[in-house]
């Protein structure tokens, strides 16, 4: 479904991604783990078209999207739950969800999807008129996920959705991710919480300073000595 091939990304002189390649098959959960500053967020931003790679290519559903405008990429079916949630703080919960459906013209279906989001996150429904900035961290993360779902993505990119949440909520978020996936959405999950991520993913990539250093099925990586030592705390 998504094929990232040998991309090089620079921030000025900083070589942030070095010949990075990732393949994601339809219907899977793929996780990308790595330490702070490894380049995970950069990878997601590049897929979404916010940053342009200097070389290499990105294809989605067999279409080259390497130089495609970000809004077209959204229209093609790739949404992102960005790092740090990035909800529109001075807009209501409802308006945030509407923004997620910004490119859609099928009003009736949008309403139905809105109801689905509210069924999935009843707390958002109660707070639909509330400003997003006044939500708790967990609620904001749910809103960020709901907002991304409103675009009806085929591929959902999630950047550290468990960041800063209490353990109980982290568990809930991971269950939600699995549920979204079971309803047909392919997921690329960036996580620091390697243990949880590997436990729900099909395939995994490990990044260090802009490069993929390990890849395989989630099971393989979970049992790999290197991953255990560096990311699973033992």
């Amino acid at each position: 479904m998504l094929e990232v091939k040998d991309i090089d990304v620079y921030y000025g002189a900083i070589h942030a991604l070095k010949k990075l390649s990732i393949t994601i098959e339809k219907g899977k959960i793929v996780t990308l783990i790595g330490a702070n500053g490894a380049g995970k967020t950069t990878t997601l931003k590049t897929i979404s078209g916010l940053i342009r790679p200097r070389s290499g290519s990105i294809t989605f559903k067999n279409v080259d999207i390497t130089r495609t405008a970000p809004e077209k990429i959204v229209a093609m079916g790739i949404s992102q739950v960005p790092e740090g949630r990035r909800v529109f703080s001075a807009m209501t919960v409802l308006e945030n969800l509407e923004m997620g459906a910004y490119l859609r013209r099928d009003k009736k279906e949008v309403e139905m999807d809105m109801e689905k989001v509210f069924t999935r996150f009843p707390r958002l429904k109660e707070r639909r008129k509330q400003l997003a900035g006044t939500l708790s961290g967990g609620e904001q993360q749910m809103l960020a996920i709901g907002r991304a779902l409103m675009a009806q993505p085929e591929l959902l990119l999630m950047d550290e959705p468990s960041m800063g949440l209490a353990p109980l909520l982290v568990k809930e978020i991971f269950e939600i991710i699995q549920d979204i996936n079971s309803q047909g959405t392919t997921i690329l999950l960036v996580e620091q919480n390697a243990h949880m991520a590997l436990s729900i993913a099909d395939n995994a990539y490990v990044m260090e300073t802009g490069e993929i250093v390990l890849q395989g099925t989630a099971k393989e990586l979970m049992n790999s000595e290197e991953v255990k030592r560096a990311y699973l705390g033992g």
Partner: protein
Amino acid sequence: MLEFFQQAVNGLSLGAIYALIALGYTMVYGIILLINFAHGDIMMVGAYVGFFSISLLGSNILVAMIFAMVTCAVLGVLIEKIAYKPLRNSTRIAALITAIGVSLFLEYITIFLLGATQRVFPASAFPAKYYNLMGIVISNKDIFIIVSAVLLMIVLHYIIKRTRTGKAMRAVSLDREAAVLMGISVDRTISVTFAIGSSLAAAAGVLVGVYYNTINPLMGIIPGLKAFVAAVLGGIGIIPGAMVGGFVMGILETMVSGYGSSLYRDAAAFGILILILLVKPTGLFGKNNGEKV
């Protein structure tokens, strides 16, 4: 006391004009963090378009206003595309200097093309009538200015709060990158912002023509600066702040002229600016981060 209310009424129409101009400043700032110093001059162009559509085409004041608004919407979009867009990733000071350049360009191209002399707004466009409301005198001009400004603000409020485009403008102003991830086109949103802000300025320009009766190529400078102060007073980037700030500035100015001396009225405006910057730089409506709509 009657005198006080009379001054307040006089100040309302001036304030309505400042509010319309301040809205454009604040909307543009909210979305690209630029103080568009050419904004007052766009108002001037609007006044001229209104003037010519009345004097040459014989249109009535409403048609003149619509004409001016459409022309300036296009002008605003062009200015953004030609002058500001190429600088979007450079320093803010570069964009600010460019805005001053655009301002001077508009002023002097108008002088070059139309001459520096002032023109008298055709009196036939708006025959004056006066009404006496319990001792307070109000003219049909004042009523027209206040009503049309308030109507435009209601329309603006509706656009920003309820329409898809208005929500996109707010989203871009709150978090540009997140807005892009929603599929919102930043270029298009910025264009719409300039179009709306400039058309409000154009409407204000025609209203200034009605208010002062005369227009000239440099007429945008002082009202532009005062509207800028109004925007800062309300909290730059905050739309209701610009509305309130505009009315406060207008009323204050007529009070200072009425009770003190008209010599002090401009000084009062800039005194206020200094005071806000000292006491509450984020403005009346500003929160501590208060840069956004």
